[in-house]
Each structure stands twice: as structure tokens, then as C-alpha cells.
């Protein structure tokens, strides 16, 4: 599988994604500079976490205009896979490639800790290895992860199976107490209508290297491998 990690000014998790794709999974992975204008035949484009443009104004607001984003949109339209993690997710909603918006956490604070998410739809290229409402333990690290979508659109994306991840308790219960940031209906990750673009706030790349005991993030990358 051919992967590219897009580097925006202020991307922080670019190295982490690159490391996991290339060294843990052995994918053919390369860097993509945000001023580039094409993706050059990739299967998967990863928009990593971080603070593109300092998250100034709104997270993702300025990065959506980077030259590479036109290519990302084309790639998505043509069915290519796009994975946006954390800041990558924020860029994708700002760019309109995914529905909704990401607002400041309910607590008003940055939060870095392990969260549990339940896979609501295993019928996507990103989650095919996560059947049976699989619960994953994945770190979150964000100040703006509070997912919002208006009620009509919420109904539509829910019916379409576009809600892919919800925050839950370790036992898989989706409850207010398990919601770390105030997201509507505990939503932690969504896909587009065609299900080839996934945005998620949790960081699967932070729990994929066998150096650590927690490896649930591997499920996302294994799913991608499986689909390739």
C-alpha cells in the first residue's frame, strides 16, 4: 500500500504517523509537503495531528487552503482513501470533506489521556477488522474535539452509517460520563458518504508500536491493509 503523510506548517504527529505506517506496518510511505500540488498515485493520504497554522482562528481553518488540499479533495472524490487524525479531522471538516464541525472541548481545556471508543460501523475500509462493536482503547490529545452537527444532518449521517466511532466506557457503554469533550452523541469519528474518508479525534498511531502494551490502534491500519 502506498501512503503519504501530509506535512502542514505546525503538524506535530507527522513523524508519528510516518513511523507507524513505514516502520511498524512496512507500508511504502512518503512525506508530502503542504505546498505540493498532487499526491502522485497514493492509496492513502494521512492528515496528521498537530496545530497547523497554530490552530489560529479555528483549528484547520487556514490549512484547508494549503495547495495540497485540492489534490486531497480530488483523491477523495476519485475514491482514494484519506485518514484525518485529530488536527487532520479538523482540517477535513473545515474543508467540507466531512460533515459537521469541531468546537472547543466542553471543559475548555486541552485533554491528553486514554479514551475508549466503540466501532459503530465495521463496514468501512478503516474498520473492517473491528466487527462486533469492538471497543478500542486509544489516546486522545486535543483542545477542540467537541463534535457538532445540526440535528437534520445528524440523522442523515447516522442513518448512512457515517458515524464510525463513539466514546464509551471500557465496557462499551456510550454514556455521558464517557464523553471527554462534549461531542454530540459521543461522536469520535465520522466518514464521508462514500466511506473512503475517515476523520477521528483519537490517535491510533499512539497505540500501534509494539514498544507499548496498548496496541488497539493497529486495528485501523490492519483494516486498511486488508482492504488494499
Amino acid at each position, binding site marked *: 500500500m502506498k501512503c503519504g503523510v501530509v506535512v502542514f*506548517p*505546525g503538524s*506535530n*504527529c507527522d*513523524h*508519528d504517523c510516518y*513511523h*507507524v505506517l513505514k516502520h511498524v506496518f512496512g507500508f511504502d510511505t512518503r512525506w508530502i509537503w503542504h505546498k505540493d500540488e498532487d499526491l502522485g498515485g497514493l492509496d492513502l493520504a494521512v492528515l496528521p*495531528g*498537530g*496545530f497547523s*497554522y*497554530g*490552530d*489560529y482562528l479555528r483549528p484547520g481553518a487556514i490549512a484547508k487552503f494549503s495547495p495540497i488540499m485540492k489534490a486531497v479533495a480530488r483523491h477523495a472524490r476519485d475514491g482514494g482513501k484519506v485518514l484525518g487524525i485529530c488536527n487532520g479531522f479538523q482540517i477535513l471538516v473545515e474543508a467540507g470533506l466531512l460533515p459537521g464541525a469541531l468546537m472547543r472541548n466542553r471543559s*475548555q*481545556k*486541552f*485533554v*491528553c*489521556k486514554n479514551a475508549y471508543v466503540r466501532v459503530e460501523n465495521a463496514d468501512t475500509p478503516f474498520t473492517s477488522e473491528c466487527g462486533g462493536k469492538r471497543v478500542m482503547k486509544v*489516546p486522545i*490529545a486535543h*483542545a477542540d474535539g467537541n463534535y457538532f452537527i445540526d440535528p437534520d444532518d445528524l440523522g442523515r449521517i447516522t442513518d448512512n452509517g457515517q458515524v464510525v466511532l463513539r466514546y464509551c466506557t471500557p465496557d462499551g457503554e456510550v454514556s455521558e460520563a464517557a464523553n471527554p469533550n462534549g461531542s454530540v452523541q459521543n461522536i469520535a469519528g465520522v466518514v464521508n458518504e462514500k466511506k473512503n474518508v475517515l476523520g477521528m479525534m483519537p*490517535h491510533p*498511531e*499512539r497505540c500501534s*508500536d509494539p*514498544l*507499548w502494551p496498548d496496541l488497539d490502534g493497529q486495528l485501523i491500519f490492519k483494516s486498511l491493509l486488508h482492504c488494499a
Partner: protein
Amino acid sequence: MVKAHGLTPDEYRRILDLLGRAPNLTELGIFSVMWSEHCSYKSSRPLLKTLPTEGPRVLQGPGENAGIVDIGGGMAAVFKIESHNHPSFIEPHQGAATGVGGILRDIFTMGARPVALLDSLRFGDLSEPRTRYLLNGVVDGISSYGNCVGVPTVGGEIYFDSCYNGNILVNVFCLGLIKADKIFRGNAAGVGNAVIYVGSKTGRDGIHGASLLASSEFDETTEEKRPTVQVGDPFTEKLLLEACLEIMKHDWVVGVQDMGAAGLTSSSFEMAGRAGTGVELDLSKVPLREEGMTPYEILLSESQERMLFVVRQGHEADALAVFKKWDLNAAVIGRVTEGHSVKILHAGEIAAQLPVSAVVDGALALQRPSQRPQYLDSITELDLTGLKTPERGDEALKKLLAAPNIAGKRWVYEQYDHMVRLNTLILPGSDASVIRVPGAQKALAISADCNSRYCYLDPYQGAQIAVAECCRNVVCAGGEPIGVTNCLNFGSPERPEIMWQFEQAVLGMGDACRFLEIPIVSGNVSFYNETKGEAIFPTPTIAVVGLLEDQKRHCVQWFQKPGDLVALAGFSMEELGGSEYLKLTFDSCRGPVPNLDLPQEKKVQRFCLRSIREGLVSSAHDCSEGGLAVALAESCFTGPRLLGARIEMESTLRSDALMFGETQSRVLISFPRENKEALETLAREGGVEFSVLGSVEGERLTVRIDGEDYIEQDVRVLKKIWDESLERYGR
């Protein structure tokens, strides 16, 4: 005007002697910042010279932006700690944020990639609304800056005491990694080479932030033009970081220095000073944020996120191209010259011209008088017979676990991204954090410590304990201490009692490091931490870096498996002086501080390190504030899994001293039963007392002393008390 610049008549006379003429206003400004306490270390230098700074691993000692220690395999660790106390008291968010920015630049200026931050914080009483405001603001500032730059904040320490009501402390430590043969220094070498400015534009921020106040030349309207608070721009810092590391791959980069305190002035003078050259700068070329700035303002501005590069002649365009790629302002603003002076041009005229050595080395080293403070006469003794021993320890334990100085710091470190870059092997929450060295089998353990109550009661011993405890924390994680950095926070050096505290602390720190054979490679001094004559407790913050040759052999503080045995390495004495227990239960801050026997300390650390390296132990936790009882409780509940323990002890000490006393040189370990003999042998060979106390089991912590129940608690209850205490003060 001389006085307004914070210079004494003696100092002014010295300037006249050195120059053979009167300085102009700009030149006076230069002397004033460069000879300020902050930049010249004039009060502390003679004492700092006594510190042990050498060792086989040292690649760079004090004097550069940061210290460097060889970690083998062609790699080196670069680190330093710095204070941002005064700015953080005025504006906690920006003050703390720019503190992070400054220490990061110190590290990447040397060519290292910053890999971890620690924050060491001191606040006043939490019952004061102002304290809570400062606490929230500081944590928010650190989090916003560090997270945005993408360097994980992996640990630190935080203490509360009313002595910090009027002066909080914000010390930030940064660790970087570098190839041992790719170290950059602040050298303006090579006549004809270009001096390049890069980073944020220069504004009127914090002029005279580092030294004293303005000159009479400023009029009333100046105040509003000249905000004293600098605002950090972490996004620009991130670009600066990446651009610097990229450009430093080229051999035409000659020298680099960041513009910290005293901005362009200190960077240009110090770089020329180190290289023995001169520098000519044209201020008209400096990128400016505001209109009508004078040479005085440009030279003394402390705008953040700026650096000065010296680049080999002919490579100016190459350098500018890299900075352009990262959308940074950059300009060639001068040249390295022959001779040994710095010449400053502005609008075609000479604004200042000064001999480098006069400015850099000219400050008089002050022999400030020192005198033992009187307060010590009445508080160094403690009569234990007057203190009633409680029958049982449950209530005291709960009270200690809820005390802000001991309670869990999750509320703080959850606001910091402590995982970014995938190097954090031990996350915050254990004795020391462990950072792996990418591309190698090695890892580094880091910790910051200082119990300033001890230092108040006995600065010499207190500073020794800070060193010992910090090393012990690193050892408990499996690291062998290889280098120290320190941040000396004190009151006004103009008071003999403060100078005495300072002198004692420096001597104590130096003696402890010498004995433990670890070099001090960098540091920082922050004086004048006092308000209305009330000084803070002396607070010599110590940070230690420890090396793990095998990153898999790291160790955490929490129990791992039911059935493991629990033992104490080291022995307990009847010591309650200076303890958190004494303060909480008897509202008393007095007494002899715990004894520190350095040979004993060294033996315990060696034993502990060896048993971790040989894979014999499951957990290791040092006993510090709250003593053995708190260490036991923390070992039960700080891990991913709650585990109880059953402890049986016999002792001739008062039970409260045994359980809550803060005797040094003790480590609580747990280990599989089958390793008992091996550990006992190691301990015997190492001359370390080793006593099995009980075992890991169930979900309750029970402690029996001489056959009587002393503590008997549900671990879940204890955890809740400890875990939720601090967040009550959050906003």
C-alpha cells in the same frame, strides 16, 4: 539616568574607565542589560565556580545555551532548566508560555531536537483566589505553548506554600537529543561571514525585561507603547525549530544563538565574545513590527521567537531560502568583523560602538556579604515528646493523600500532550518519566525535584537532599544519573541572609553532586523572588538526566502482580522535622531536616539500579513527602490496575515517624517471590539494609505494626481522595 538603568555609581565609573569616554544612551542601555544580575551573574558567579562541572561524559558544561552529556552510540543529551517567575506572576498564561518558548530555543539553538519538557512549579496557598488564578493560568500557558510546538511535557513537580503567595516559581526544563559530532555553539567566527536575523519581527516587547527600568528619555506616553508582557507565538516557534534543524544540516552554518533576555544585544555580544571577533550590525535591516523604533528599543527588545545565525560568506541566499520555505522573516543584518568590538549602525549613523570584552566580561563580580539568618536559631529543633502520636494512621494517611503537595497531579498533566512523538515510555505519574532515544536501544529518565521546606530549615542539607532525591527518582525508573541542571530561585542577593542561603545551597548541591559523581552541566539563577521584604523559601530546583542502556529495563513505581513481595531498601529513623505530616497534623514547619548520609544514599541507589537492570524487581518507588505510608499507597493505586498490599512491621520508632517520617535513602520495591534471595544477596553485597514488609494482595492496604492494626483501607477509596483533590482548584 545611570540609576534608572539599574547601574551603581561604581559600575558607571567602571564603564567610563573601560571606554575612556562617556557612553551614549544606547550604549548605556547595552551595559545596563548586560551587567544586570540576570545576564552577568555578578552576585552568583564566584559561588557557581565551585560547582563540579566536569566528567568523562561532558561535551558541554555551563556557559553555552545548554549543557551536553554524551550518552554513547554517537548521541548526546542536551538539557537545561530555566525560570520565568516574574513574568508569570504578572501574566501567568503568557509568562509561562514564553518560559517554555525560551527553554526550547536554548535546546534547538545547539542543533538538538527537543524531545521532552518538565515543569517545576511553586504557588502560594490554594485558599487564595489569586493562587488559583495563577495556577490555572500557568498550566494553561505551558499547555498551550508546549502542545502547539509538539514537544511533550512529560512530568514535573508542583508545590504549594504560603511563602510563594507573592512570588510564584515557574521553572521549565527541556531535554533534547543531538548527534555528538553535530553540536552548534554561539560563535560569531570567520571575518566576513554574514549575521542573519530570523523569526518574529521585533516589537517593543519587554524592553528592560531582564534588567531594570527605563531611562529618563522615555516620556509618559512610552508606557503604553511598551508592553512589559511578551506574548508567545508557539506556531512561529515550531517553524523556527524545524527551519533551524533543517538549516543546521549544512556545513556553512557557523554559529547560532537565540535572542533571549536582552535580545539582539546579548546574542551579538556573546557570539562575538566567544569567537574573539567583532560584529557590525545595521539595525535598519532588522524586521520590525512597529514603526519608529529607536536603536535603543531595537537592541533591547525581548520579542520572542527570534534567533541570530552566523553563516559562511556566500551562503546568504541558501540560508534565506530555507527560512522562506518555512514562511519565516529573515534578513542579513550584519557581518563578522576583525577587531574586537560590536558596531551598531542605524540609518547610516553609528548608534553604538563598544569593545566586546568590556560588555561581556566587564561586570564587576560582587562579593556580597552573607550572614546566617536569625530565624534559624529558633526553628531547627523539634521536641517529639510534645507531639501526640495517634493510635491509628488511617486519618493521617487520608489527610496526606488529599494534601495538594502530595495529591495526584493528573489534573495538571492531562492538560499537557505528554505522548506526542511517540517517545514517552513512562508517562507522567511515576517517580521519573522515561523517554526512549529514537533509533537506539537506549532511553533517558528525567525528574525535577526540590523540597524547599527543607531548604528553608537547612539550605545546605536541603540542597543535598534535592540532588539525592532527584537522582533517586531517576534510579527508580532504571536510569543511571549522568548529568544535572539546576535553577536557583532565591530572594534578594542584596540581603546577607539570602546570600547565606544561596551560598549554603550552592555548596550543598555541589558537594552532593561531587560525591554522587554527576556533573552539573547547565543552570540558571533567579534572584529577587521576594515581595515587600518577604522572600520565598530558598528553592534550588534540581533536574537530573539518567541513562538506561536498555530501554526495556525501565521500571515504574506501581505494584504489578498479586503475590509479589514488598520490601524496603534502606532503613527508617525517627525523623519528623520538616515533614508534610508535621505541617498538616501539627501545623508546624520546623525541626532538623531528615539526615542525609551520602555514602548510604549512593549504596541504596546502586543496589536499586542493579536490581532493576538485572530484571529482579517489578516496581520501585522512592519514599519522599508523606513517607513510607504514602509510598505504599501510591504503589497500590497509581498503576493501570488497583492492587492492595498486606504489610507487617516491627519497630522501636513512634508509629507515625515510621509511617509518615521522611527519612532519606529509602526505596520501596516489589518483586516476584523467587527473586528474594538474589535481592538479599545484592543488598548484603551492597551494604544496604533490606527488609521484606509483606506482599501485594487483594484490594485493601493493611499495615500492622508490632501486631497491631495501624492502617486498613480500601485502595479505591484512597485513590479517589488522592486523585480528585487537585482538580477542585481548577477552573
